[in-house]
């Protein structure tokens, strides 16, 4: 089954080669980072987490979003998701590995990672996050391969897999909740000190993740014989719509609380995001781009005629994905550090090597997802 990932046409191998080149170039920069230290990044004493940890956070959401196809299909027996469920699970597998990759490249002493298991610390949310992420990866690998194997043999999946599938549903929620707990319980960071963080993480996950899945399904439809049909795409679009509405709603709640209370320790972070603090305005254009894209996405998704038009839906999904990526993958982590605990401002801008290392991890995820999709489609004999 899995050997199908090593067979393919010219276009398949060109794409693989492209990803491998990015991984190789990024890998060289990672070696440099390994030798010189994280000094080659834009991180500093005041802003000590940046692009890597932000990408990690975003990817946890993408991983968790598989539950949006798993739950309707397995729990509610929603047959239309039959073909697409495996795609969601494979995205989760790739995203989980990317999460681990981002943590790994962020560490000052990456080869001491085993210390997390040698000295387990239940007090630390990072310990729990490692546990739930590893568990989620194992669950998704197991579920996707067992079900795909049964599909290949045209038999029903074994009975013992069902409780594991059901377990994966709350587990998906747990990974993003615990990831929010990484940040939301720190006395030092008023920007993150919000009970809404975990719910909002889930809302962003359940909009950006399925939006990505729609885009991937449409790409597959264009390039292979794989076709989910209209119904599951439209159903996913509705999930994206509701989740995106929740996300924007929760963002407005955050803004209300900060602005109406006017507590400088909370408000100043939002000022930094949308207006800048003094001359420090690095994120302002990005955050407004994110806001405008969110509005465009909502218009394209909420109006039924737009949502049902697949071309417009594609743009809606792209808008959702980019808007949330900017918000979570750029704004959310860095702004926790700006202003810093001394209420002064040190800005952060990622460096070129840092961006290349980030792309390396993205390409690695792309490679894994490509290979797994190849396997799934080969089993279904739906390749070109």
């Amino acid at each position, binding site marked *: *089954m*899995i*050997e199908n*990932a*090593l067979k393919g046409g010219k276009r398949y191998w060109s794409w693989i080669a492209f990803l491998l080149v990015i991984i190789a170039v990024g890998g060289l920069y990672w070696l440099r980072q*390994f*030798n*010189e*230290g*994280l*000094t080659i*990044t*834009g*991180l*500093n*004493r*005041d802003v*000590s*987490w940046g692009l890597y940890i932000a990408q990690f956070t975003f990817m946890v959401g993408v991983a968790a979003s598989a539950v949006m196809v798993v739950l309707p299909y397995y729990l509610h027996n929603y047959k239309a998701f039959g073909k697409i469920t495996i795609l969601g699970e494979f995205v989760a597998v790739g995203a989980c590995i990317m999460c681990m990759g981002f*943590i790994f490249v*962020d*560490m*000052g*002493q*990456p*080869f*001491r*990672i085993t*210390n*997390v298991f*040698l*000295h387990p*610390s239940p*007090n*630390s*949310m*990072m*310990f729990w996050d*490692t546990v739930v992420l590893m568990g989620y990866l194992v669950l998704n690998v197991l579920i996707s391969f067992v079900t795909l194997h049964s599909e290949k043999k045209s038999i029903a999946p074994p009975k013992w897999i069902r409780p594991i599938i059901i377990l994966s549903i709350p587990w998906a929620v747990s990974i993003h909740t615990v990831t929010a707990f*990484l*940040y939301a319980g*720190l*006395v*030092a*960071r008023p920007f993150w000190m919000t009970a809404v963080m975990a719910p909002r993480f889930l809302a962003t996950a359940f909009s950006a993740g399925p939006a990505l899945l729609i885009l991937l399904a449409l790409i597959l439809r264009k390039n292979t014989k794989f076709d989910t049909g209209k119904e599951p795409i439209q159903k996913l679009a509705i999930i994206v719509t509701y989740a995106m509405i929740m996300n924007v709603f929760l963002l407005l709640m955050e803004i209300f609380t900060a602005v109406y209370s006017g507590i400088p320790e909370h408000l100043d972070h939002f000022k930094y995001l949308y207006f800048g603090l003094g001359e420090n305005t690095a994120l302002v254009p990005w955050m407004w781009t994110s806001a405008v894209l969110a509005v465009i996405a909502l218009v394209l998704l909420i109006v039924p005629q737009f949502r049902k038009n697949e071309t417009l839906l594609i743009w809606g999904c792209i808008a959702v994905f980019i808007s949330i990526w900017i918000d979570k993958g750029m704004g959310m982590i860095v702004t*926790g*550090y700006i202003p*810093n*605990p*001394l*209420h*002064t401002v040190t800005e952060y801008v990622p460096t070129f090597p840092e961006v290349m290392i980030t792309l390396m991890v993205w390409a690695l995820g792309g490679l894994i997802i490509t290979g797994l999709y190849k396997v799934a489609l080969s089993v279904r004999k739906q390749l070109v």
Partner: protein
Amino acid sequence: MGVDRRKFVKIAGAAALGLTAAPPIKLFSSETEEKADTSLCNTATDSCVCKPPEVDPVEQGLKKDPTRWAMVVNLGECRKHEDCKDCILACHETHNVPDFPKKKDEVKWIWKEQFSHAFHEVENEFGDEELNHSPALLLCNHCDNPPCVKVCPTQATWKREQDGIVMMDWHRCIGCRYCLAACPYGSRSFNYRDPRPHIKEINTDFPTRMRGVVEKCTFCDERLAEGKLPACVDACKYGCLTFGDLEDADSKVRELLHSHFTIRRKPGLGTQPEVFYIV
């Protein structure tokens, strides 16, 4: 089919082996510096375990057990000597704290910060301009309830039971910088690059660190073990720094806390800092 799969697993296995072979090779090359580090730190580790002899409190009946170390900083006196850096230099020389040319790599254990930044929550726009702009001496607060300890995923930083010092194990730290995110006082530094070439004169009595680990003030646990005062306290010729045991009702720190109005940084967070300031 089965053969194909086996073949694939073989290829994948070989590839994985190739990937994992690189790191050990890298590790060997830096083995010497790691070793040097370990041998130096053994003394520091030993001292972490044993009780400071000067304060064998129960036997001598002088101090309470457990001890709770604290510092009182007399900002009013310190302010008069704005350019004095004796305590900072003494600390950084004793502990091999590097001096990096770029601010973004900065490592510091004790430093002076504008009062209005250090205590921004009590800043008053009509208050004493001079006070707002005067320097305040900052260091690790050795909180009674340390948020950094709570978040560490490897227990590389912990609160020492017998005297409340927030300790660091530089050999266990994985460099995740979660403690930097958690510290509400900005007291922790990360070695973004190899610190050794940037140490002016290496003090061989104290370990140096390697890149990729977090460090901070340890209230001079190694000096306390020898019955000495912390290096900064020792170095201050104006007597601005007072160090002692809060559990001991007759200690100098308790006397100062009783006779003066003192403030602590961000008391509302419940961290219970052990560094007090006389304004």
